[in-house]
């Protein structure tokens, strides 16, 4: 097996061994969505208006929730430092790990968003726009939360700290995404904003792993 295959296979085995890491954020997302009509209003017209934004915010929080574990246990087990001894650039291996994380932990959240959309009576075309926006924007969000996790590896309570550090980077993505949703509700053109979001994701998928690898190196250099 090549190094790449081994890293991806290990993420799969880990996901199978720790199903809670996948189920918990989904559970959280569904819980938030099902609370909205109870707490706000059961009126389907008003729900339709705020529904897609609620699903977005809940997904963002769920994503932050599960990024906490991205590197922490591998770091304390000494698995992460072994990445440095592979005959590959660390940034490339980190990119693989982030990709696996997106596929195993973020994609399920996106896949259940149509269910959330039905629960909040979001109209069909908006719900499709929501789904596409999430597909396009979450790679960038995954990269940023990975950077937050890597920067705070050495500290306890790293989850909240990482999220705080990364908050400013989330803002442009959320603003663009909500722009797409507003336009979809008006029935106007969404493609330009989606393209911009896509560009954001592609750029962060290329650049952020480099930053993550530097952060990991620094944290390994400061640990025993």
């Amino acid at each position, binding site marked *: 097996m*090549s190094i790449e295959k*081994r890293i991806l296979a*290990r993420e799969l*085995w880990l996901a199978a*061994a720790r199903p809670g890491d996948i189920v918990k954020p989904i559970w959280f997302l569904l819980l938030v969505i099902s609370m909205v009509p109870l707490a706000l209003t059961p009126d389907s017209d008003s729900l339709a208006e705020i529904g897609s934004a609620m699903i977005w915010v809940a997904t963002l929080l769920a994503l932050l929730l599960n990024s906490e574990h991205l590197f922490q246990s591998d770091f304390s*087990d*000494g698995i992460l430092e072994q990445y*440095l*001894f*592979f005959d590959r650039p660390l940034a490339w291996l980190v990119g693989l790990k982030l990709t696996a994380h997106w596929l195993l932990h973020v994609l399920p959240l996106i896949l259940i968003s149509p269910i959330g959309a039905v629960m909040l009576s979001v109209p069909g075309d908006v719900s499709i726009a929501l789904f596409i926006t999430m597909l396009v924007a979450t790679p960038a969000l995954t990269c940023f939360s990975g950077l937050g996790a890597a920067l705070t590896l050495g500290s306890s309570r790293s989850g909240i700290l990482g999220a705080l550090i990364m908050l400013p980077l989330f803002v442009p993505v959320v603003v663009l995404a909500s722009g797409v949703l507003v336009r979809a509700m008006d029935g106007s053109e969404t493609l330009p904003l989606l393209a911009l979001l896509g560009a954001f994701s592609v750029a962060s998928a290329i650049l952020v792993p480099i930053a993550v690898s530097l952060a990991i190196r620094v944290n390994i250099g400061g640990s025993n």
Partner: protein
Amino acid sequence: MNLEPLKLKIARLSCERDYRLLFDSLAFTLDAGSILRVAGKNGAGKTTLLRTIAGLYEIQEGEVLVGDQPVSEAMHRILYIGHRPQVTGDLSVLDNFKYMAGHDDTSLKFALDSVGMLSYHDSLVKELSQGQGRRCALARLWCSDAPIWILDEPYTALDVSMIKILDKKIASHVANGGICLFTTHQVPTLSEFQTLELGCVN
């Protein structure tokens, strides 16, 4: 299996941690086929030295050369086993090992058999004892083609029979032209090795 003959050269290596000078202008060369035991009291800087030589720590002053390359470019020639478990509790022995060594199933099973863990290959590592977990981590030595082994406290938690097996493995590694650096607080049972005593410089 013969390894490519490599030299490990340490020149003018100094390290300061938390305003304490751990070692200053350390210089030595290890030829293919040599074993070095790094000795010293707790806190003398054994782990720091090993991690610096392995390339995990940024070199503050001096250089570490593997062959004629700086260590940062030659880390794939090093096998490092440190204090941390190096295995994942939630995975089975075989899965952990498949990930670390990446060889085909027969050579993996041979390696696990060598450390006496083959009959446990389906068990989760978190269900094993500490010594058994350590055996799993050490099983990598049987699948490695890295010429330089850096082992930080490899004997911790091992029983007498495993210590013998490990000594034999290290001896055969250096007989094939490898280099081994290790630390231990126990009386080493290896037959031939050099010792580097680290003491507080000031």
